[in-house]
């Protein structure tokens, strides 16, 4: 129905092509033997990188509180056969490699990390864009459940973003299935050799086993996509036949049921797909934490696409009060995210229990910049910029803050996944950027294709009139 100019059709294809090439290079250039790793490490040492890194580690140790306690934690976790903590402990002491065997083991370990790296980069980007569409789906359902009057003008934008849920979900599922079939080693608990020596994972194997894991993943995806299918169907039918609001009432009921199902399934999804990267570690508010991240990213993308469409002359009835409301959500949910992030951090930091605190020790020591930089991007910047009421109505400020928030939440997911999969061998390089480009391209392609399939105004919605007159 609506046609977009050619550049918005060419851009995603270019992005996807660039992303594919970059990812291919990333996979090919991953080391395949310990000899390769030795060379890589040697070249790093020659650059003085190793020493600088060690010094850096030392500084962060000093700066972060209770360095001694943390080192103990490292040692304990290493006894627990957690390969990653072992590596981290070793990495800190890499200048005291006395035995040749230890050196060999270390090389093997780095090899695994570097082999994981392109996979982890792929997974993070795939999950990030998938979670945006899921966050938007929840936001959409909330609008119906709350019978919101301000937002129906934006419904078609939200519906189009959720179109990515199915392709994005399938891609994430395929990556999880590949892990399950041992084509990559993202999840340590999937390795039977690790489980054989690990009592903690053995105790959890009733939940953490590959068949059940994949069945659960399929169930979550099915449940969300079923809601998405019917929500779109009811919304279109309401346009065709607004008499009596029959379809609107169905949308309302479907949204209410979905929200209940979602909050349970999302929690479990976050344990499965993210928290199980560190199978020893657990956090009871992890589901909420991941939810906050997906929610704020989703709302930000709604705002960005709305601003873009408006700048191209679509969505004439959307006024700056709608933008203002979206920006208020971006502001509020950013603070909500920080609240959860800090609640999780503070309790674990304060109690300092070895098996819990390793999670943050690895992040603060090995991921100092992304860990603290993320707080600046996700809290301080949006807080200070969006605090001003007038700024929430200015399009270029929304775009600026929106991009910063999206980068911040990409790094948030990066911090959730990378420490457990590649440990201290992380770097935001070609594989990471290419994966983001590829999925960004796919996302834009799917979303803008979906935008052309229906009228940009949900003409049958009973609250559309109120939304058009919305003024604050």
């Amino acid at each position, binding site marked *: 129905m609506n046609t977009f100019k050619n550049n918005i059709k060419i851009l995603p294809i270019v992005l996807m092509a660039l992303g594919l090439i970059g990812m291919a290079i990333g996979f090919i250039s991953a080391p395949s033997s310990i000899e390769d790793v030795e060379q890589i490490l040697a070249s790093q040492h020659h650059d003085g990188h190793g020493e600088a890194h060690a010094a850096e580690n030392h500084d962060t140790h000093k700066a972060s509180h*209770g360095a001694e306690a943390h080192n103990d934690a490292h040692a304990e976790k290493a006894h627990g056969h957690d390969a990653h903590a072992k590596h981290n402990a070793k990495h800190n002491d890499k200048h005291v490699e006395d035995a040749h065997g230890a050196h060999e083991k270390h090389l093997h370990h780095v090899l695994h990390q570097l082999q994981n790296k392109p996979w982890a980069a792929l997974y993070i980007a795939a999950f990030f864009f998938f979670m945006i569409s899921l966050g938007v789906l929840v936001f959409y359902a909330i609008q119906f459940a709350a019978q919101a009057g301000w937002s129906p003008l934006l419904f078609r934008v939200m519906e189009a973003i959720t179109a990515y849920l199915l392709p994005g979900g399938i891609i994430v599922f395929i990556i999880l299935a590949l892990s399950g079939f041992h084509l990559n080693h993202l999840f340590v608990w999937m390795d039977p050799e690790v489980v054989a020596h690990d009592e903690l994972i053995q105790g959890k194997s009733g939940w953490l086993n590959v068949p059940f894991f994949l069945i659960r993943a399929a169930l979550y995806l099915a449940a969300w996509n079923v809601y998405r299918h019917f929500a779109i169907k009811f919304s279109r039918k309401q346009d065709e036949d607004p008499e009596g609001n029959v379809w609107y009432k169905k949308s309302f009921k479907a949204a209410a049921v979905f929200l209940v199902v979602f909050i349970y399934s999302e929690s479990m999804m976050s344990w499965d797909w993210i928290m199980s990267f560190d199978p020893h570690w657990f956090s009871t508010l992890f589901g909420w934490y991941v939810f906050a991240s997906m929610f704020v990213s989703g709302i930000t993308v709604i705002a960005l696409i709305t601003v873009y469409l408006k700048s191209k002359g679509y969505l004439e009835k959307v006024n700056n009060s709608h933008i203002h409301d979206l920006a208020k959500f971006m502001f509020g949910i950013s603070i909500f995210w920080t609240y959860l992030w800090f609640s999780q951090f*503070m309790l674990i*930091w*304060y109690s*300092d229990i070895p098996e819990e605190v390793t999670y943050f020790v690895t992040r603060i020591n090995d991921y100092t910049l992304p860990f603290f930089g993320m707080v600046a991007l996700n809290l301080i910047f949006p807080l200070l910029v969006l605090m001003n009421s007038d700024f929430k109505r200015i399009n270029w400020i929304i775009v600026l803050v929106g991009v910063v928030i999206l980068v911040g939440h990409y790094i948030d997911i990066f911090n959730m996944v990378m420490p457990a999969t590649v440990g201290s061998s992380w770097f935001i390089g070609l594989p990471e950027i290419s994966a983001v480009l590829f999925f960004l391209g796919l996302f834009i392609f799917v979303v803008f294709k979906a935008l052309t399939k229906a009228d940009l105004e949900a003409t049958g919605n009973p609250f559309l009139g109120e939304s058009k007159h919305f003024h604050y």
Partner: protein
Amino acid sequence: MASKVAHAYYLDDEVLMDAVRACNIKHYHIEEVYTPFPVHGLDKLMGLPHTRLAICAFMYGLIGLTVAVTMMNYIMIEDWPQNIGGKPSFSFLENMPAFVPIMFELTVFFAAHLMVITFYMRSKLWPFKKAENPNERTTDDLFCIELDASKLGEDELSSFLKDTGAVEINFKNN
């Protein structure tokens, strides 16, 4: 200064808004509008300047944050350092995460309370203050526009206000 005001009463906020628009078109000077609840958009119609309370709130928040930091630094670090949970408090920075809830709460506390007090002072409200409403029903279900009537004829103004939907019109000399 001897002046005369007209009080026009309305039963509905939408009617009131239209009446204010009509007054604006005629360039009648509205002194004040009394409503039982905040009416959205009324401030813009009346041409009231944007509130500066938000700026105060921000500064009060900063004061609260400063008080919290100073207080926690004095109590927990300087005056009586303790070793809580294996975290000896010899440095503010190293113990900072434990103080964040206090810093947050005091920021909110200062911002909220000082903002309310500022609002009362700015609106000239204090305990035992006598109400200024022309009619106490403006706190219940009536909306009232107070117009400057010193330069206008009573009859002309009455008929104009009747047309805007006023249910009662009084003139008052103060």
